[in-house]
């Protein structure tokens, strides 16, 4: 799967994009977040307050209970502030 990070999520994790083989036991966005949190202190910090994180799966806004699959593009970012 492709993971994308924007704004301060990107800054805390230290990268904009990465590819990841779907980890064992990861079926939803919430599972993926739990997995990422354990990858390092930057990830842990980025996902520390999950209420501040929004997600898009394949370029569509989603929720943490949304399913994720091996060839999905999953993006994490703060609430949007355009306009």
């Amino acid at each position: 799967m492709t993971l994308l990070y924007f704004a301060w999520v990107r800054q805390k994790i230290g990268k904009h994009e990465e590819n990841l083989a779907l980890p064992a036991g990861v079926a939803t966005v919430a599972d993926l977040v739990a997995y990422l949190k354990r990858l390092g202190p930057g990830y842990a910090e980025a996902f520390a307050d999950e209420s501040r994180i929004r997600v898009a799966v394949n370029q569509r806004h989603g929720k943490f209970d949304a399913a994720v699959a091996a060839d999905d593009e999953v993006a994490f970012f703060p609430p949007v502030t355009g306009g």
Partner: protein
Amino acid sequence: MKTKIKIQPEDFSIDAEVAALTAEGDPGAVASFTGHVRREGDLAALTLEHYPHMTEGEIARIAEEAASRWPLSGVTVIHRIGQLAPGARIVLVAVAATHRQAAFQACEFLMDYLKTHAPFWKEEKRGTERHWVEAHAGDDRAAERWHK
């Protein structure tokens, strides 16, 4: 309905976009909105980041939703990215319709949804400090009133 969506660093011409929206058909009314970088305190610049794969599709969905609610002849959305100075224009939403109430309502609807759904993020530069703008609960409430 004619839809034009552009994400670009460059400024835009409201006159040119309104002219394009009214070049054909019978749109008697065009409602437009421009958002500008605030000119306040020590705000030196705003930098806009977005999610390129997603932005246009999300705005297109918002425009389709507007067209399903009001009889519109055209919608133009131009959103700038990159670094913008105080006073600079950030976004243009222009809506053409036969009747002005449809144009006004759809333009306000589009702005409310753009603010809460289009994947853009603003980073402020104040002096040498940079920080990300927080989302406003008021924007969520503004978008929610259209659910009623």
